[in-house]
């Protein structure tokens, strides 16, 4: 229930399109830390357009807070566009990797069935260990941890969340218009950066 005095906190997925610029991650992260907001998940990667990056950030706050935060992020010079959506508004996934001793998998047929039931896929097999992958919501990737724990789970890792906004044409068309109008710059490589010994210092 949402009322005026105690508006409900919930998960919001913030989508940020940015220039590919050193230091911008720091600028964006500071917008959260300054307000003492914990980032639950953060993913950043190149978008479909060269030179433009897409951030997916998950936070647990009220709608009022997320809308203010979104404006502050959009205010940053290198930020092109910010959206925020509830979990209902997006399709989201997280990927998880599980490392398990190979002998266990080989010997115990039950494990194989459990893996199949959980939609896991083998990504690497070595004589000493095997790596599985699943993709899904948190409960789904969590479920397989519980299954594999008794069989000697060696290592587990989960990715940040990626999300696609359901009700939007996406930013793709706009981005491509941007790119046509002003193609991204080639990055200047600094000739001094990797030549420590050869450069004269005063």
């Amino acid at each position, binding site marked *: 229930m949402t009322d005026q005095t105690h508006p409900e906190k919930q998960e919001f997925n913030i989508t940020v399109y940015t220039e590919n610029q050193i230091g911008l991650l720091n600028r964006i992260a500071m917008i959260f830390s300054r307000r003492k907001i914990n980032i639950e998940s953060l993913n950043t990667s190149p978008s479909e357009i060269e030179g433009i990056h897409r951030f997916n950030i998950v936070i647990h706050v009220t709608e009022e807070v997320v809308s203010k935060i979104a*404006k502050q992020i959009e*205010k940053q010079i290198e930020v092109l566009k910010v959206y925020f959506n509830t979990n209902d508004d997006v399709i989201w996934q997280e990927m998880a990797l599980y490392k398990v001793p190979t002998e266990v998998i080989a010997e115990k047929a039950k494990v194989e069935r459990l893996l199949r039931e959980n939609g896991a896929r083998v990504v690497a097999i070595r004589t000493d260990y095997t790596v599985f992958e699943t993709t899904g919501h948190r409960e789904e990737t969590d479920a397989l941890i519980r299954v594999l724990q008794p069989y000697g789970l060696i290592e587990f890792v989960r990715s940040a969340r990626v999300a696609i906004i359901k009700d939007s044409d996406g930013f793709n068309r706009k981005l491509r218009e*941007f790119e046509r109008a002003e193609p991204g710059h080639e990055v200047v490589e*600094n000739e*001094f950066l*990797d030549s*420590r010994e050869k*450069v004269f210092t005063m």
Partner: protein
Amino acid sequence: MLTQEKQAPASPETGTQLSGSQALLHALVVEGTDTIFGYPGGAIMPIYDALYDFEGDLKHILVRHEQGGIHAGQGYARSSGKVGVVFATSGPGATNLVTGLADAQIDSTPLVCITGQVFAHLLGTDAFQEADVIGITTPVTKWNYQITDATEIPEVLAKAFHIARSGRPGPVLIDITKNAQLQKFDFQGYTPCDHIRSYRPKPIVRKEYIRAAAELINKAKKPFVLWGQGVMLGSAEAEFKAFLEKTGIPAAWTIMGAGALPTDHPQNVGMLGMHGNYGPNVMTNECDVLIAIGMRFDDRVTGRLDKYAKQAKVIHLDIDPAEIDKNVKTTVPVWGDCKETLPLLTQLVETKKHTDWLAQFREFEQKEIDAVIREELFPASGEMTMGEVIQQLNELTKGEAIIVTDVGQHQMVACRYAKLNHTRSNITSGGLGTMGFALPAAIGAKFGAPDRTVVAVIGDGGVQMTIQELGTIMQSGIDVKILILNNQFLGMVRQWQELFHERRYSFVDITSPDYVQVAKGYGIAGRSINQREDLTNALKEMLSNPGSFLLEVMVTKENNVFPMVPQGCSVSEIRLK
């Protein structure tokens, strides 16, 4: 002194071989910079070396501390409306800029700061005087960037100036590694920047909101305008006045907005906020439509938000979309530069007078005069008040001077009582409240407006924070009037201790040096007075002195600034004593 023969700066024609430093200085010249405030050091030496040849185009003022340099840059920007330019070296030079950056960021002051940095190949090695300047200054700049290759300089500088001065202005810092300053490259010309793909300095004006705002204003019985510095930042003083005069709406100002409308304008009803005037604060909670123009509802202005103007429909004109609904929920947001939006609004509003409503403000003013102002400006007691000093100053300057204030009681008194006939005449540290601001900012203000009288009004606490800038005055020969209001206390803190901490005066008793002797040491004329009968003459002496002059006035030790909205109270709970 033996000096090298100076060479004229290399021609900036396309294809010329230029060093990064030369390219930087050319960029400054093209951007219209005439004055730089700075302090050299190892990591910025190539730029200073190149500066040696730019004497005719770029004046450099050697300050005594980088904090002084950046406050001077702020004063220059605020008095002139241009971008202030500041140089500092790496490490300690750069970190000394942080206070000024934070101040400029919160008060939206356009600055381009250039810091030297260690050689690129030493970055991240804890090299001598290396500091992560980009990391340190990220939260206090509108934009910052590190240049490690000279070829980046023209484009980055063009971007820096565009970002600093456009939209909601702010400070930009460019950190340049020493190799990039030294490196020679084929200069391809300098093109000023007016567009950045990901940067929207001005939101698109939405006509439907202008119409909705006009409708609210036309229906309003008790509309009330609050204005801030946005009016000046948008150079929209004339548009603002036209809007006010057509609508007949009473208008009050935040301290950052002071001067955008002359003090004597019949619709100017005074100052808002914690130490603002009684009427405007009380009436905020009476009006039916509140029209906020280029102001950001700072907590020092609003007091308790949950009791702020709850009865009113709110129209907020602002260039920064992030300001809309940040603190106060708006009924109609008018995104845009008020230079564009105000005329559109003026077209649609009806001509009105609001005589009775305006008269109510004047009634409150009378109440405030009787309870506070008369005694402050014309005290019966023997000791001088800060208010009467400002009152006398007003009489003598006739509202023509630029008043630069430091932070504390004198700041509130000066802002409350100073008469300002012109825009860009009140320079103060509003958002950060930085003690030590006034002396260097006044130096900068004078360079930014050399034809105007500049008076710095400073407390005995604040002046000791940047007093070394007397050296800058001495060396540059600039004419700044320094008025120290000495109450022998860190007055504003003492006032809070008196009112809210049972008079437990914890470390607010501050002793001062003999300021006149100190000034004398710097070759600056001065005088100290403690008798009322000397006040007018001493002020006259200060104002008519051909160069800088320091006047110390001993004022009542334990005087309080009233009215006051105590922290955590609603603006309508403003206390007259």
